[in-house]
């Protein structure tokens, strides 16, 4: 196959994989849940986008017509990731998980929690 396609695909692949990795690394390393929540839902999703783009390009090139699966998957991920994050945040609030010291604007979370706690 032509060099530039291979190049693009490879770049997308590596970049995506790196982002995926960063997401998981963040999940493993970050201090508290709220910070951890960011890593997978953002970085990983982005990384997935990269990977899917790579595969979309490659498949389109190989099969000669536009391959839609990747688009579908991307769509799903893009729609669901925020909701997942939202739900997880809700559960975290419900469980009153501790937040690290370095968090700015703790009052926000406190207020949110008060609004959230059942009376």
């Amino acid at each position: 196959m032509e060099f530039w396609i291979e190049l693009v695909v490879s770049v997308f692949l590596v970049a995506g994989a790196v982002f995926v990795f960063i997401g998981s690394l963040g999940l493993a390393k970050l201090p508290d849940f709220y910070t951890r929540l960011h890593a997978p839902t953002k970085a990983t999703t982005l990384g997935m986008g990269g990977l899917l783009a790579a595969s979309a390009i490659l498949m389109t090139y190989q099969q000669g017509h536009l391959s839609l699966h990747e688009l579908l998957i991307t769509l799903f991920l893009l729609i669901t990731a925020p909701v997942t994050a939202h739900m997880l945040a809700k559960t975290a609030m419900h469980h009153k998980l501790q937040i690290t010291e370095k968090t700015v604007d703790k009052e926000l979370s406190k207020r949110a929690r008060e609004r959230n706690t059942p009376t």
Partner: protein
Amino acid sequence: MNLLWVVLLPLIGTLVPLLTERFGRNVCAFSVALLPAWSLILVLMHVGEIFDGEAIRQTIEWIPSMGLDLSFRLDGLSLLFLLLILGIGLLIILYARYYLSDKDSMGQFYAYLILFMSAMVGIVISNNMIQLWMFWELTSISSFLLISFWSHKPDARKGARMALTVTGTGGLALLAGLLLLGNIVGSYDLDTVLASGDLIRAHAAYPIALVLVLLGAFTKSAQFPFHFWLPHAMAAPTPVSAYLHSATMVKAGIFLLCRFYPALAGTDLWFMIVSLTGLITLLLGAYIALFKHDLKGLLAYSTISHLGLITLLLGLNSDLAAVAAVFHIINHATFKASLFMAAGIIDHETGSRDMRKLNGLMKYMPHTATLAIVAALSMAGVPLLNGFLSKEMFFAETLDQSMLGSLSWMIPLLATVGAAFSVAYSLRFIHDVFFNGEPIDLPKTPHEPPRYMKVPVEILVALCLAVGIFPAYLVGDLLHAAAFSVLANDVPMHSLSIWHGFNIPLFMSFLAMVGGITIYYNRRHLFEFQAQFNEPDAKYIFEGAVQSLIKFTQRIMATLENGSLQRYVFLMLLFTLVMSAYPLFELTQNAGSRPQLPIDGVAITAALLLIISAIATVIWHRRRFLSLIYLSVVGLIVSLAFAKFSAPDLALTQLSVEIVTIILLLLALYFLPQSTQKESSNRRLSIDLTVSALIGCVIGTICFAMLTTPLNSISDFFIANSKTGGGGTNVVNVILVDFRGFDTLGEITVLGIAALGIFKLIAKMRIYVPTRDDKGRPWTKDRHPLMLAMVSQSLLPLALLVSVYIFLRGHNLPGGGFIAGLITSVAIIQQYVANGVLWIKPRIKVDYQWLIASGILMATATGLGSWIFDKPFLSTWFDHFHLPWVGEFELASAMIFDLGVYLTVVGAVLLILANLGKLTTSERVDNKENV
């Protein structure tokens, strides 16, 4: 003629009394007698040929492939026994008609009796050992029914159980022996077995076979030490005793000895066992009989002793002795049957069988008394009666044997002693009952029985006399024929005459007479002597044995089956382990010749994840939510493995099922304890762990061995014909909906049934709904988070689109009804989760049972549809069409079938999950708010 009918007629006759009972006693008795009489006539039609020494054989193929067929043979011995069985049987039928009271169910009695009769007939004319054994067991069972006929009496029940146990055990031993014989000879055909006597006697297994067969015979004909069941079987109605315990059942053992005489007899072992058992039984029976106060008890023990006599004769290994034995079989049957009937009459008319009360009946029932006296004299062996003749022959035989070497003289001596005792008890029977003063407070005032009740007795007694006076004319031929078939060679010269001149046997019987009379007149001292030791009642010993056996069994059950499922599972597992591990020891090396795939990093990672999360599931199995999370990881990895090893359909199915399972378990977990404390002891844990680990090793080994052995599969056919025959390129799906469509139909049916069962189980289940989670936190008020609800609604069409797409491509690319159905139901369940039941209710109006039903119906209809084009069930039709815009596309009837699968899956999953979810909707307290 048809030998089959000889046994078949009585067998059919078993039903007759049940039908004709309602027409009154006479009709019943008469109708019952018909069929046995017919088969007796059938037998008599062949007396001529038999007397000429022929044997009639007949074989009816039953299961030729297994070498099983019904084979019969009628020779002299069979003829003799048939005459006894059917002849005396008819007399008994007549007798029983008068004996039975109105309270007894006549039809039942006759049915049992005829059943027993046909079983006996079957024994004596069988020409196949297994067949013979089957009839043998049938006699045990039917005699059980007969003895326990008065089932309200505990004696009857106990006696029947004892008889069944003893004879049944003997029957099993007999079966073993017969199988062994068949093994030695290589055939179960009786002719062959009897012909190859030398082979058997020479064989190493001969002693075992002999002992086993003899066990069967001795238990049946009440030989020492198995004699104890016979007296207790006297609790039966007297016709039964008269029939079973004089002429037929107890004679079955003797018949067995005679039948196998050519095959088994002639060795020292045979002599030792048979003759000594016979001798002991003869003496013991004769001795005990003297002290019995019960009429039937006396007769029972005398029967035992006479059977012992016959056995002894058969044991002597001399041809003449065998002849004498056969002769005594006839005589004993005649006089003992008549005696039993007489005793029955006395019991019937006086209401008692106790000889201490029965006295001087001569003047009350002279007719019966005369008959009984004649029969008793014949039993005692008085000249001019048949008993005398066979006893003479018996004495003669005891004289000319030299088996015990220098001690051989003991046998005639002991024989004389036994004879003396038999004279004594015969005297007692006569004198105590019919003379000896006046009856003592009998329940009834004795009088003669009804006229026809005496007829059978008269006939038999007449026979006794006639045979006693003109033996040669009456039984000569019969005896010759019977002896011929017992010895299987020429019968030695024997003269059936009353007078052989003055010889030792005559002198011996004279001694016996004198001795008997003396014994009887000094019986007082004997009774006192006997009174010292109380003989152990066999019943108590036997019952004790039975009880202890029951206790033992109960103890075993208590340990094995203590009602704990946990324990059962463990035991089952242990068994499985043993059974599956054993063959592996033969497996020398488990790595086969198939080239193995290279290991790559992804595989290692996946395996690592799988193993760790599986173990984690186990470790945290008490914190249930946690173990559930690990479980879903395992499921994920498994489906990845399917994808990796080129099974995309499986990967898809596994994924969707896994999610559905997780949702199901979450739904259930809400009602169950969130976490439990440690319950089982460490010892228990380690044991369980060991066992399951061992099983894991075994399974793993098998799996590895299987993976590494080259594959020869039938799947090439499927791959070859998938496109041409099934019209699809996705072979897996084509197999599901076409090649093995019938299986799939079954599967979805099972699925539907399971779903319906669950639906019924859930109905009206009252269950505790926790108001706080396990940490004591109250649930949040926000029942349907807005974002989730909105996004789920917007995702629904997308998901449905995907499932339709998966369904449509299923025939040619990974996908199909199962997967599409699962996806659809997951999508809908998501709506339930996100928006709640109340939101769904107005939107999905179809109820899920209907979905299941229509799905299964559709699938079945597709199958049936192929009948219209007279093709076999579920054969697919497909064709290709061209549409503008869409292009080439294919229609296959398999697609409709797949649609049925789809609907069933959707219906089942939703029926299960939605109903499980609805369980709480009405009960949540905060349900009314913010709806």
